[in-house]
Protein backbone atom coordinates (compact mmCIF):
# COMPACT_ATOMS: atom_id res chain seq x y z
CA UNK A 1 0.00 0.00 0.00
CA UNK A 2 1.47 3.41 -0.94
CA UNK A 3 0.31 6.97 -0.33
CA UNK A 4 -0.10 7.70 -4.04
CA UNK A 5 -2.20 4.60 -4.61
CA UNK A 6 -5.39 6.02 -6.19
CA UNK A 7 -7.44 3.50 -4.22
CA UNK A 8 -6.40 5.25 -1.00
CA UNK A 9 -6.66 8.87 -2.07
CA UNK A 10 -9.51 10.42 -0.11
CA UNK A 11 -11.20 13.42 -1.65
CA UNK A 12 -13.61 15.54 0.38
CA UNK A 13 -16.97 16.46 -1.20
CA UNK A 14 -15.86 20.06 -1.87
CA UNK A 15 -12.65 18.85 -3.58
CA UNK A 16 -10.25 20.89 -1.38
CA UNK A 17 -7.16 19.20 0.13
CA UNK A 18 -7.34 17.68 3.60
CA UNK A 19 -5.34 20.55 5.18
CA UNK A 20 -8.05 23.03 4.19
CA UNK A 21 -10.88 20.90 5.57
CA UNK A 22 -12.54 21.62 8.95
CA UNK A 23 -11.00 19.96 11.98
CA UNK A 24 -13.80 17.42 12.39
CA UNK A 25 -13.22 16.19 8.86
CA UNK A 26 -9.46 16.02 9.37
CA UNK A 27 -9.92 14.01 12.55
CA UNK A 28 -12.53 11.68 11.08
CA UNK A 29 -11.64 11.45 7.40
CA UNK A 30 -14.08 9.49 5.31
CA UNK A 31 -13.14 7.80 2.11
CA UNK A 32 -15.76 9.64 0.04
CA UNK A 33 -15.31 7.74 -3.24
CA UNK A 34 -15.66 4.50 -1.33
CA UNK A 35 -18.64 5.82 0.63
CA UNK A 36 -20.42 6.96 -2.55
CA UNK A 37 -19.71 3.68 -4.26
CA UNK A 38 -21.04 1.64 -1.34
CA UNK A 39 -24.19 3.76 -1.03
CA UNK A 40 -25.00 3.26 -4.74
CA UNK A 41 -24.31 -0.44 -4.51
CA UNK A 42 -26.54 -0.81 -1.47
CA UNK A 43 -29.34 1.18 -3.10
CA UNK A 44 -29.08 -1.13 -6.10
CA UNK A 45 -29.44 -4.05 -3.69
CA UNK A 46 -32.59 -2.45 -2.25
CA UNK A 47 -34.00 -2.11 -5.78
CA UNK A 48 -33.24 -5.77 -6.36
CA UNK A 49 -35.35 -6.65 -3.31
CA UNK A 50 -38.15 -4.44 -4.70
CA UNK A 51 -37.87 -6.26 -8.03
CA UNK A 52 -38.21 -9.58 -6.23
CA UNK A 53 -41.25 -8.28 -4.33
CA UNK A 54 -42.94 -7.41 -7.64
CA UNK A 55 -42.38 -10.97 -8.87
CA UNK A 56 -43.93 -12.30 -5.64
CA UNK A 57 -46.95 -10.01 -6.19
CA UNK A 58 -47.29 -11.14 -9.81
CA UNK A 59 -47.11 -14.78 -8.67
CA UNK A 60 -49.94 -14.15 -6.23
CA UNK A 61 -52.08 -12.69 -9.02
CA UNK A 62 -51.33 -15.65 -11.33
CA UNK A 63 -52.26 -18.16 -8.62
CA UNK A 64 -55.48 -16.28 -7.80
CA UNK A 65 -56.35 -16.08 -11.49
CA UNK A 66 -55.81 -19.82 -11.98
CA UNK A 67 -57.86 -20.63 -8.87
CA UNK A 68 -60.67 -18.44 -10.17
CA UNK A 69 -60.67 -20.24 -13.51
CA UNK A 70 -61.05 -23.59 -11.78
CA UNK A 71 -63.73 -22.38 -9.41
CA UNK A 72 -67.04 -24.19 -9.55
CA UNK A 73 -70.02 -22.44 -11.14
CA UNK A 74 -71.80 -19.84 -9.05
CA UNK A 75 -75.14 -20.77 -7.51
CA UNK A 76 -78.48 -19.73 -8.98
CA UNK A 77 -80.32 -17.52 -6.52
CA UNK A 78 -83.77 -16.03 -6.63
CA UNK A 79 -83.48 -12.29 -6.00
CA UNK A 80 -86.90 -10.78 -6.72
CA UNK A 81 -90.31 -11.17 -8.27
CA UNK A 82 -90.99 -9.25 -11.49
CA UNK A 83 -93.99 -7.43 -9.99
CA UNK A 84 -91.84 -6.26 -7.09
CA UNK A 85 -90.06 -3.54 -9.06
CA UNK A 86 -91.80 -0.71 -10.94
CA UNK A 87 -90.15 0.86 -13.97
CA UNK A 88 -86.90 2.58 -12.81
CA UNK A 89 -87.22 0.64 -9.55
CA UNK A 90 -84.14 -0.56 -7.72
CA UNK A 91 -83.58 -3.42 -5.31
CA UNK A 92 -80.50 -4.30 -3.28
CA UNK A 93 -79.52 -7.91 -2.85
CA UNK A 94 -76.44 -9.97 -1.99
CA UNK A 95 -74.89 -12.36 -4.48
CA UNK A 96 -73.17 -14.85 -4.46
CA UNK A 97 -72.29 -14.41 -0.76
CA UNK A 98 -73.91 -12.25 1.90
CA UNK A 99 -70.86 -9.94 1.81
CA UNK A 100 -71.26 -9.14 -1.90
CA UNK A 101 -73.77 -6.31 -2.30
CA UNK A 102 -75.46 -6.01 -5.68
CA UNK A 103 -78.17 -3.88 -7.16
CA UNK A 104 -81.05 -4.92 -9.42
CA UNK A 105 -82.51 -2.26 -11.70
CA UNK A 106 -85.69 -2.29 -13.75
CA UNK A 107 -84.92 -0.18 -16.82
CA UNK A 108 -87.46 1.99 -18.58
CA UNK A 109 -87.16 -0.37 -21.58
CA UNK A 110 -88.65 -3.08 -19.36
CA UNK A 111 -85.39 -4.98 -19.16
CA UNK A 112 -83.77 -6.01 -15.86
CA UNK A 113 -80.06 -5.50 -15.19
CA UNK A 114 -77.98 -6.15 -12.09
CA UNK A 115 -74.48 -5.03 -11.09
CA UNK A 116 -72.10 -5.34 -8.20
CA UNK A 117 -72.66 -2.35 -5.94
CA UNK A 118 -68.98 -1.62 -5.25
CA UNK A 119 -67.46 1.11 -7.39
CA UNK A 120 -64.48 -0.20 -9.39
CA UNK A 121 -62.45 2.80 -8.27
CA UNK A 122 -62.30 2.49 -4.46
CA UNK A 123 -65.25 0.22 -3.65
CA UNK A 124 -67.70 2.90 -2.49
CA UNK A 125 -71.34 1.80 -2.86
CA UNK A 126 -72.79 3.11 -6.11
CA UNK A 127 -76.27 4.64 -6.36
CA UNK A 128 -78.41 3.82 -9.40
CA UNK A 129 -80.33 6.70 -10.98
CA UNK A 130 -82.17 4.88 -13.78
CA UNK A 131 -84.33 7.88 -14.65
CA UNK A 132 -81.09 9.72 -15.59
CA UNK A 133 -79.58 6.65 -17.22
CA UNK A 134 -76.63 6.52 -14.84
CA UNK A 135 -75.25 4.76 -11.79
CA UNK A 136 -73.37 7.27 -9.71
CA UNK A 137 -70.59 6.85 -7.19
CA UNK A 138 -70.92 9.68 -4.66
CA UNK A 139 -67.34 9.37 -3.36
CA UNK A 140 -65.47 10.67 -6.41
CA UNK A 141 -68.29 11.43 -8.85
CA UNK A 142 -67.77 8.35 -10.98
CA UNK A 143 -70.63 7.67 -13.38
CA UNK A 144 -71.58 4.40 -15.08
CA UNK A 145 -74.05 3.67 -17.84
CA UNK A 146 -77.12 2.05 -16.28
CA UNK A 147 -77.77 -0.17 -19.33
CA UNK A 148 -74.26 -1.55 -19.84
CA UNK A 149 -72.36 -0.78 -16.62
CA UNK A 150 -69.56 0.90 -18.61
CA UNK A 151 -67.79 4.00 -17.32
CA UNK A 152 -69.16 7.34 -18.50
CA UNK A 153 -66.94 9.66 -16.49
CA UNK A 154 -64.87 10.00 -13.35
CA UNK A 155 -61.93 8.08 -11.89
CA UNK A 156 -63.12 4.45 -12.35
CA UNK A 157 -61.51 2.79 -15.36
CA UNK A 158 -63.33 -0.54 -15.30
CA UNK A 159 -67.04 -1.20 -15.83
CA UNK A 160 -69.17 -2.50 -12.97
CA UNK A 161 -69.23 -6.31 -12.78
CA UNK A 162 -72.51 -7.48 -14.22
CA UNK A 163 -74.73 -10.13 -12.64
CA UNK A 164 -76.26 -12.39 -15.26
CA UNK A 165 -80.01 -12.76 -14.79
CA UNK A 166 -82.63 -15.25 -15.75
CA UNK A 167 -86.27 -14.12 -15.72
CA UNK A 168 -88.81 -16.92 -15.73
CA UNK A 169 -92.22 -17.59 -14.21
CA UNK A 170 -92.45 -14.08 -12.79
CA UNK A 171 -89.21 -14.53 -10.86
CA UNK A 172 -85.75 -13.05 -11.36
CA UNK A 173 -82.75 -15.29 -10.71
CA UNK A 174 -79.07 -14.36 -10.47
CA UNK A 175 -77.03 -16.98 -12.33
CA UNK A 176 -73.44 -15.69 -12.42
CA UNK A 177 -71.03 -12.78 -12.70
CA UNK A 178 -69.32 -11.43 -15.78
CA UNK A 179 -66.78 -8.69 -16.26
CA UNK A 180 -64.67 -8.90 -13.15
CA UNK A 181 -64.63 -9.48 -9.42
CA UNK A 182 -67.23 -8.20 -7.01
Amino acid at each position, binding site marked *: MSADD*PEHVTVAPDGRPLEEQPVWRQEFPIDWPQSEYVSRREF*TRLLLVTS*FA*FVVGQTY*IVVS*SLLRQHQSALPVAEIAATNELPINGVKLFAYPAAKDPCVLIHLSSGEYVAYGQKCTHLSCPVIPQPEKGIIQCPCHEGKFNVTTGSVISGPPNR*PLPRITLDVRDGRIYATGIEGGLL
Partner: protein
Amino acid sequence: MKRSRFVYSQRTTIALGILCIVLVIVVVQLWLFMATMEAFLGGNAAIPIPAWIASIVCLLLNLGLFYYLRNLDR
Protein backbone atom coordinates in the same frame (compact mmCIF):
# COMPACT_ATOMS: atom_id res chain seq x y z
CA MET B 1 -6.00 -9.29 -0.88
CA LYS B 2 -6.92 -9.21 -4.54
CA ARG B 3 -7.47 -5.65 -5.82
CA SER B 4 -10.31 -4.59 -8.07
CA ARG B 5 -9.25 -3.50 -11.54
CA PHE B 6 -11.15 -0.21 -11.04
CA VAL B 7 -10.54 2.52 -8.46
CA TYR B 8 -13.49 3.65 -6.35
CA SER B 9 -14.33 6.69 -8.49
CA GLN B 10 -14.56 4.48 -11.57
CA ARG B 11 -16.60 1.90 -9.72
CA THR B 12 -18.96 4.64 -8.52
CA THR B 13 -19.61 5.66 -12.13
CA ILE B 14 -20.26 2.05 -13.13
CA ALA B 15 -22.50 1.54 -10.07
CA LEU B 16 -24.46 4.68 -10.96
CA GLY B 17 -24.99 3.42 -14.52
CA ILE B 18 -26.16 0.02 -13.29
CA LEU B 19 -28.35 1.68 -10.67
CA CYS B 20 -30.10 3.73 -13.38
CA ILE B 21 -30.74 0.64 -15.53
CA VAL B 22 -32.05 -1.33 -12.53
CA LEU B 23 -34.28 1.60 -11.58
CA VAL B 24 -35.80 1.70 -15.08
CA ILE B 25 -36.41 -2.06 -14.97
CA VAL B 26 -38.09 -1.78 -11.56
CA VAL B 27 -40.35 0.99 -12.89
CA VAL B 28 -41.28 -1.33 -15.80
CA GLN B 29 -42.10 -4.02 -13.23
CA LEU B 30 -44.26 -1.56 -11.31
CA TRP B 31 -46.17 -0.73 -14.49
CA LEU B 32 -46.54 -4.46 -15.27
CA PHE B 33 -47.85 -5.11 -11.77
CA MET B 34 -50.44 -2.33 -11.96
CA ALA B 35 -51.59 -3.42 -15.42
CA THR B 36 -51.86 -7.04 -14.29
CA MET B 37 -53.83 -6.10 -11.18
CA GLU B 38 -56.20 -4.02 -13.27
CA ALA B 39 -56.70 -6.86 -15.76
CA PHE B 40 -57.21 -9.39 -12.97
CA LEU B 41 -59.84 -7.28 -11.22
CA GLY B 42 -61.51 -6.70 -14.59
CA GLY B 43 -61.84 -10.47 -15.08
CA ASN B 44 -59.21 -10.73 -17.85
CA ALA B 45 -57.45 -14.07 -17.44
CA ALA B 46 -55.17 -13.72 -20.50
CA ILE B 47 -52.84 -11.07 -19.02
CA PRO B 48 -51.46 -12.43 -15.69
CA ILE B 49 -49.24 -15.27 -16.99
CA PRO B 50 -47.41 -13.33 -19.77
CA ALA B 51 -46.96 -10.40 -17.37
CA TRP B 52 -45.61 -12.76 -14.70
CA ILE B 53 -43.06 -14.15 -17.18
CA ALA B 54 -42.05 -10.62 -18.19
CA SER B 55 -41.61 -9.70 -14.53
CA ILE B 56 -39.38 -12.74 -13.96
CA VAL B 57 -37.25 -11.75 -16.97
CA CYS B 58 -36.90 -8.28 -15.43
CA LEU B 59 -35.82 -9.82 -12.11
CA LEU B 60 -33.24 -12.00 -13.88
CA LEU B 61 -31.87 -8.94 -15.68
CA ASN B 62 -31.59 -7.14 -12.36
CA LEU B 63 -29.90 -10.14 -10.76
CA GLY B 64 -27.37 -10.28 -13.62
CA LEU B 65 -26.59 -6.59 -13.28
CA PHE B 66 -26.19 -6.86 -9.53
CA TYR B 67 -23.97 -9.90 -9.93
CA TYR B 68 -21.74 -7.84 -12.24
CA LEU B 69 -21.72 -5.03 -9.68
CA ARG B 70 -20.69 -7.38 -6.89
CA ASN B 71 -17.91 -8.75 -9.05
CA LEU B 72 -16.42 -5.26 -9.34
CA ASP B 73 -15.16 -5.65 -5.77
CA ARG B 74 -13.31 -8.85 -6.54
